[in-house]
């Protein structure tokens, strides 16, 4: 026997080379198990923790306990603690054991110690993709729901109040959706640098939006009235709906190696893209008003920075300077000149923007305008949103803007 030089032999406390009694193991070859653990072929049988605690522990997806390190299945790299793994082998079965996660036969695990940072990053990206898929699913549900509601509305078109009540909920949901997609956008830009994402940001944003869009029936009806009058004016002047989704956005996304993100971002912009522009522009005009009236383009590009603003602090990701450089490459080819302005006004703008529109929508808008830059042509005429939800949101933005306009004289001309 004797230890061969160079052989990897982990220093594992003797007591962790045998099961801790999580299960009543039958047919376990304790000698073999001990050897496998000492040879680092299997994770040590540390006692599982009930809670994650402050330290970096991994949860075993079978027993839901936390461990310093887990074994990985060869087929799908899913983690499993040694004691749960021992349970997977059905001793009396002649059939090869299936992987409990992906059902591949001949289930086998390997042990590579604690997860590296890269592995954790990849895993989180995977999780994000699952979340995105769920969001897309939910969006589809909402669209279906919306269509059903629209049908109901057609039926009872003589009574517009009924329509307003029925569609109030989907409109609210649409906003929630927007905030979630905003999170995805953050991932898309971070992915190229394989930096883990902090998930804690999202719930906070959600809850704040919830408060803001908790409207009562009367408000909705007033908004609808405002909207209808605007819509009528708008139709007379420019009946064409401008779709603000330029190709550049998609190209940019592919460049940062997240082609799979494109559908999510794309789909999120189409239902409310034009609306987001309108809201953002209106809010912005009121907020900036006289001080920065000349830099319409600059302020639009600043919106693009917003996805990061709330996040960067928690992620310790790029320092402000570098992130500004990074974003233009991916989304804003022409915006580099405005950096100082952005830095100075960032927080203020963020307040305005995040509360009204999902910022990736706005980001798309900004590109749209820069394409036609030179003659700042903000919205290409009045926007006629297609769905009732959008109309209501726009109406809300307009009434808000009007209220503010009364307080301060407007700066740059809107049309």
């Amino acid at each position, binding site marked *: 026997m004797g230890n061969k030089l160079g052989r990897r032999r982990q220093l594992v406390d003797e007591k962790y080379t045998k099961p801790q009694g999580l299960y009543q193991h039958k047919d376990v070859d304790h000698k073999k198990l001990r050897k496998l653990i000492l040879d680092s072929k299997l994770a040590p049988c540390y006692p599982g923790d009930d809670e994650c605690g402050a330290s970096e522990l991994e949860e075993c997806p079978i027993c839901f306990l936390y461990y310093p390190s887990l074994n990985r299945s060869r087929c799908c790299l899913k983690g499993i603690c040694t004691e749960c793994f021992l349970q997977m082998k059905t001793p009396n079965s002649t059939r090869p054991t299936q992987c409990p996660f992906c059902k591949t036969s001949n289930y086998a695990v390997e042990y590579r110690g604690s997860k590296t940072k890269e592995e954790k990053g990849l895993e989180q990206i995977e999780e994000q993709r699952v979340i995105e898929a769920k969001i897309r699913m939910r969006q589809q549900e909402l669209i279906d*729901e919306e269509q059903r509601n629209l049908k109901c509305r057609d039926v009872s078109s003589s009574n517009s109040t009924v329509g307003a009540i029925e569609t109030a909920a989907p409109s609210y949901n649409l906003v929630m959706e927007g905030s979630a997609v905003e999170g995805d956008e953050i991932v898309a830009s971070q992915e190229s640098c394989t930096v883990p994402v902090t998930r804690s940001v999202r719930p906070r944003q959600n809850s704040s939006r919830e408060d803001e869009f908790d409207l009562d029936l009367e408000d909705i009806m007033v908004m609808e009235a405002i909207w209808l009058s605007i819509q009528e004016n708008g139709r007379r002047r420019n009946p064409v709906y401008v779709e603000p989704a330029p190709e550049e956005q998609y190209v940019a996304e592919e460049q940062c190696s997240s082609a799979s993100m494109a559908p999510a971002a794309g789909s999120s912009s189409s239902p409310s893209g034009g609306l987001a522009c309108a809201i953002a522009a209106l809010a912005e005009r009121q907020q900036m008003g006289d001080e920065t009236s000349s830099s319409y383009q600059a302020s639009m590009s600043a919106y693009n920075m917003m996805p990061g603003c709330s996040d960067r602090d928690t992620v310790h990701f790029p320092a402000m300077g570098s992130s500004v450089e990074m974003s233009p490459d991916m989304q804003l080819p022409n915006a580099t000149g405005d950096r100082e302005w952005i830095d100075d006004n960032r927080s203020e703008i963020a307040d305005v923007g995040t509360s009204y529109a999902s910022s990736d929508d706005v980001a798309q808008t900004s590109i749209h305008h820069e394409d036609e830059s030179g003659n700042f042509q903000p919205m290409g005429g009045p926007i006629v949103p297609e769905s009732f939800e959008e109309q209501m949101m726009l109406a809300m933005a307009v009434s808000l803007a009007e209220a503010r306009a009364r307080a301060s004289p407007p700066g740059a001309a809107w049309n």
Partner: protein
Amino acid sequence: MTSPSPSARKGLSKIACNRLQKELVEWQVNPPAGFKHKVTDNLQRWVIEVNGAPGTLYANETYQLQVDFPEHYPMEAPQVIFLPPAPLHPHIYSNGHICLDILYDSWSPAMTVSSICISILSMLSSSTVKQRPADNDRYVKNCRNGRSPKETRWWFHDDKV
């Protein structure tokens, strides 16, 4: 239907208890869409309300699932049945037994109550016709002594619904 199933007679093991508590907490934070856990103090038997998905044959209908956990959950599958009245579905017998592979042969300890629920709702949603399985009467008669669906030798032949 209220008698304890054979698999649930023994209490939960420590690990089963721990896992179920965590699953319940996770459920409360993030319940699967369309399901509602009916609060009881019995961790070993969950009763879950299912709402038929909008736009499907079961829209606006509500059913109840009863989930009984064996001592060695999750190494062993839970027993999942519909409480009467069970939905009319080609894979759901009138006694509430469900012909769904993940509840029996294809169970994996990596699955959770939540994932089971999603599978069942998906099964309901993909149905194109509201009818009982062809062998319903024969099967239900055979189960009259209170046999658990886990003792049935199921044939899973239809992967469409």
